[in-house]
């Protein structure tokens, strides 16, 4: 996504509109504070040192969940994409699991794993596993037959075929899968931190709700949204650099 002057002007317009309706007292500012009040809440959160701590905790949980769920998803997607028996046997089970809304499993996870970091990371890993599994599986199944013929003809080493053809070929699918997984991961970070957490962005927003600090809730939400946006943006930039042949946009 490119930020151009039109997009920036629109963003400025939206902020001005937000400020305008608050300034004209068209809304109850206790329930819908203006941008300056939210900014002030954000600055005070930052100055307390808790903002960075919350961001760090949430990002750590997200990345750990992404690493675990992503690795398992990619490995199983690769295996099922290449071994028909495995796909035929195990894929229906994973398709059923994939239909469960990830948020709905949180109460069960709390019962099974408690409210600590393990439970939160598990719920994030569970949510990100499926987009990465399905995108890898589809990617491997979509490898053009000619690529595999070329690999068979020009390389007699199965390991070379795997590392230089089977793994890179599904990357366009995988890159899309990771972007979906990042979005899912942020949802799960937020939801899993709403209950039973002592730090993190979800915890901050939940705590602010208890004391009716809507400005803090909105500041937390904006930080969460910005983080999600920035993570996706960074991923796109890194992908463009690492895989220039993939149309990441």
């Amino acid at each position, binding site marked *: 996504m490119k930020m151009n002057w039109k997009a920036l002007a629109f963003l400025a317009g939206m902020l001005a509109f937000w400020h305008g309706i608050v300034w004209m007292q068209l809304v109850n500012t206790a329930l819908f504070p203006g941008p300056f009040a939210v900014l002030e809440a954000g600055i005070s959160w930052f100055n307390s040192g808790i903002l960075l701590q919350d961001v760090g905790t949430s990002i750590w949980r997200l990345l750990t969940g992404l690493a675990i769920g992503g690795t398992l998803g990619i490995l199983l997607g690769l295996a099922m994409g290449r071994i028909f028996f495995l796909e035929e046997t195990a894929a229906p089970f994973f398709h059923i699991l994939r239909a469960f809304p990830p948020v709905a499993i949180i109460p069960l996870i709390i019962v099974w794993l408690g409210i600590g970091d393990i439970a939160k990371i598990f719920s994030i890993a569970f949510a990100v596993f499926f987009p990465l599994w399905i995108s890898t599986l589809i990617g491997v199944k979509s490898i053009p037959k*000619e*690529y595999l013929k*070329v690999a068979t*003809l020009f*390389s007699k080493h199965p390991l070379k075929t795997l590392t230089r*053809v089977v793994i890179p*070929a599904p990357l366009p699918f995988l890159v899309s899968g990771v972007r979906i997984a990042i979005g899912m991961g942020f949802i799960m970070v937020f939801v899993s931190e709403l209950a039973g957490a002592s730090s993190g962005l979800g915890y901050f927003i939940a705590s602010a709700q208890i004391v009716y600090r809507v400005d803090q809730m909105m500041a937390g939400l904006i930080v969460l949204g910005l983080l999600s946006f920035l993570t996706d943006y960074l991923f796109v930039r890194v992908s463009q650099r690492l895989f*220039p042949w993939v149309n990441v946009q």
Partner: protein
Amino acid sequence: MSHALVSVKGLNVHFKEPVLKGLFLSVKKGEFVSIVGKSGVGKSTLLNAISGLLKGEGEIHAPPTIGFVFQNHSLFPWMTVKENLSFGLHENDEKKIQELMALLEMQGKENDYPTQLSGGQQQRVSLGRALATNPSLLLMDEPFSSLDGHTRLRMQEWMMNLIQKIDTTTILVTHDVDEAILLSDRIVVMKDGSIHSEHVVPFTKPRLNEIRYQQPFQELKKKIIESYD
């Protein structure tokens, strides 16, 4: 050009129904043979069987080192030109790559990705990849069919020059009879899964594109097309 490098005896291939039916073909070392015929007669199936990509019933004798050029260039989009060319090599043989780049007339494009190349360039790299391992036999399955008319003519001319430089036995599958006459020593017409007729191309090499407008060329073309039915 004495003994047979490729020998196919009584080859049968079945998919849902028989595709190749007791096919016999012999190709001499150094020979350039084109296989023509209507769609669905089993031309590509024959190439796949000779290359070992497809198993059939019957006898096939072919050299172990085979280069294959597919209809669509089938270059790996995640590899640069140089990486694609060296895919079949045991190690990154820089000298070999530079030789190939010169042969393909593509110096300076080593680090480009396939999507950055024109259709003709992509097909040339595909040919270079097939030639990288110094194959004794080169198989080409309609390599120029996806190119526009102008590029196709240029590629045929380029190919004519190239085959003068390389000492490789070649089997080309094509729908284009002009292309077959321009490049081949012999043209084999396939019909209903077997060889229907064979035509020796009497014109001396190298042949120029202009040859296709001459009377003997047109007569041979007519004879070949008439043998389709």
